[in-house]
């Protein structure tokens, strides 16, 4: 039960709290975002800007998972981890199918070429 007389600080989920990991996650994420912003601003000067950006994003996600959310396969976190993994197909569907549509949409509608 959620409201048993136990000290909430003894809950295994709460025990995962780790100030140092949070700060590390924050610093790394900020650094990656700043770098990504710089790349985006000077896109033409960086080779493979798109790949670099995607790499930075993937790295940022990984850092969040490990340091901030602390997902793993322990009995405390298994539900959260599995839920996270199950959300991955949704991400693939939403982004993948959108890219598939947009791939030919500009050419077919010619909308974006008409605009300044």
């Amino acid at each position, binding site marked *: 039960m*959620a*409201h048993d*007389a136990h000290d909430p600080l003894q809950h295994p989920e709460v025990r995962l709290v780790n100030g140092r990991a949070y700060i590390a996650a924050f610093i790394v994420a900020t650094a990656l975002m700043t770098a990504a912003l710089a790349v985006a601003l000077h896109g033409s000067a960086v080779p493979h800007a798109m790949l670099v950006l995607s790499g930075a994003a993937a790295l940022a996600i990984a850092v969040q998972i490990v340091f901030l959310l602390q997902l793993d396969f322990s009995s405390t976190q298994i539900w959260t981890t599995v839920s996270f993994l199950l959300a991955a197909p*949704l991400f693939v*569907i*939403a982004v993948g199918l959108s890219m598939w549509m947009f791939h*030919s*949409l500009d050419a077919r*509608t010619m909308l974006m070429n008409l*605009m300044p």
Partner: protein
Amino acid sequence: MVNVQGPWSPLLGRLSLGAIPDNPIIAGAFIFSVLLGILVLVYLTYADRWGYLWREWLTTVDHKKIGVMYIIIGLVMLFRGFIDALMMRTQQVLADGAHSPGFLGAAHGYLVPYHFDQVYSAHGTIMILFAATPILVGLMNVVVPLQIGARDMAFPYLNALGLWLTAVGAALVMLSLFLGDFSHAGWVGLTPLTELAYSPGVGTDYWMWAIQISSVGTTLGAANLIATIVKMRAPGMSWGRLPIFTWTALSTNIIALTSFPVLGVALGLLGLDRYFGTHFFTAGLGGNLMLYSDLFWIWGHPEVYFVILPAFGMMSEIIPTFSEKPLFGYVTMVAASFAIAGVSWSVWLHHFFTMGASPRVNTFFSVATMVVGIPTGVKVFNWAFTVYRGRSRFDTPMMWAIGALFMLLVGGLTGMMLAMPPVNYSVHNSVFVVAHFHTMLMVVVYGILGAVSYWFPKVFGFRLNEALGKRFFWSFTIGTIVVFIPMYTSGFMGMTRRLDYLTNPALMPFEIAEEIGIGFYLVSIYYFVRQLYVSLRDRNANRVGADAWGSARTLEWLAPSPVPFYNFAVTPRVHARDELVWRRGQGLEGAAPPRYEDIPMPRNTSVPLAIGALALGLGFGLVWRIWWLTDVSFIAIILTVIARSFVRDTDYVVKAGEVEGIEKRLRQRAAEAARAATSASGIDALRPRESNP
């Protein structure tokens, strides 16, 4: 930061006296709300109810009361949305053909296009996000913890927070009526119309922030319900025994948790466009307005399933109870719910087949959309087989459930028609589409009204008046038929949606029929209000025991009616899928537990209400660009959340002796109620009926 047109001052932002609209209809609405407000305030003061309101409702963390408040907000907004509908119908019946008269400054009808556009935008936004969604969340809040044998939600404090954030969204929408205006870009937010260049006023901002803030509440609520279902089930409540409504609550909240963030992103990007001058959805300058449609419907289609799955769950509870028979095909019902939830993620493009995607893309989404029909069909047959050879009783909840089944049939079949791109190209953006989704949303409304009358006695301890309930049902159903059949027809005849003026006089008969239909809806509201009044007045004659219908099947009917604040005196052990039927079979119904235990309960807190008030300040400040208000509110919210995390005294204990006393009193009251009911009606209304297992 973008410079906006018109005056702006640091103290009041864009707010000025000019923001108060001078329109007789709005003035009437304003006077009505003020009078209603004064009436409520006077009553609260006169009856000395302020303390009660504060202690029992505003600061409560009890899932049942929070659920009831969600439902009240939803019903109020349902009424507001209905008035919008009435206005639209009246405009269309008046403004028909070049010679139609004009009133109140309109060339035709009585609404100028600018106002008409706001009315339909408000109608759609309100009905889906501030009527259907809160009522459904409220019902899940009330019922799910009881069905799984829990004391409360997993996070009661978060639950209250979700409620107040939803209330803030609704409040912003209502405020826009009297201060400034509302969006005129449809409930979907048509781009680039929502961009600052085309909508320089505050209307779009009201729409955007109302949805944004309330959807944070919905997302928190979804996380809470999922955690509750996963973690708080009573011993013995294995996954295979979970009641179907709880299953649909789980699937629907998975949809909410995964899809609402997409809406948040879409609106957030729009906000960046409107406040910081970025170009995500502008026409040109590197923006892509089609991206907005894509993002909106990635949320939008899952959202329509978010509202219908709980309705399916309600039907699955009501139909077996009144057929006195177990639900046919429990496993396929669960599988179908999750299949629908899963497929709902890959069909969103059917909302813009005509945008210009390649034939292959359209074909893919067409097929995916039609696939949804398979699990939906499974459900329909399951319900039909449940009724088949059952001992059917047609109490009001059952009437609504059967009505929902018919609506589902019509809405589903017209949906299949729309799912074929060639058909869609000819009727897209016509009122045929409007009729389709209204029939679908009627499934939700019928489900809700059935569920309200079904679970009402559980929460309040007495039944709603049956005769008036039937009149409510029939007038509502006639209204539905008379409005929507002509709407389908005129859609086929080429009438496009969102028209403030009809050029084709041949459509007149349909408009007149729809106006008559909306009159039936008006009558049905009268019966509903009267039903509530009469039932409240005669409550002592209609008191019920734990099992209000005599043939209920699931765990929530084991708790006394009305349910005490701790739900179950002793956490029940679950033995079967239809636990109550099992207990009845074992002769255990009504048995008192051998001994009582101390019950730890969460304490009331005013923090969620305070955060809600601050969020209202934040939303209001954002709409009117009053930066000091947004900054102060935002910082105060963060500080409040941090301060609350240091509060250690969040629980208290109800002693076993106290529980025993309450339970004794409840049992005695139930026995008296049963006796009174028997002598009043002359029949043994509360005799448990046999169920053929």
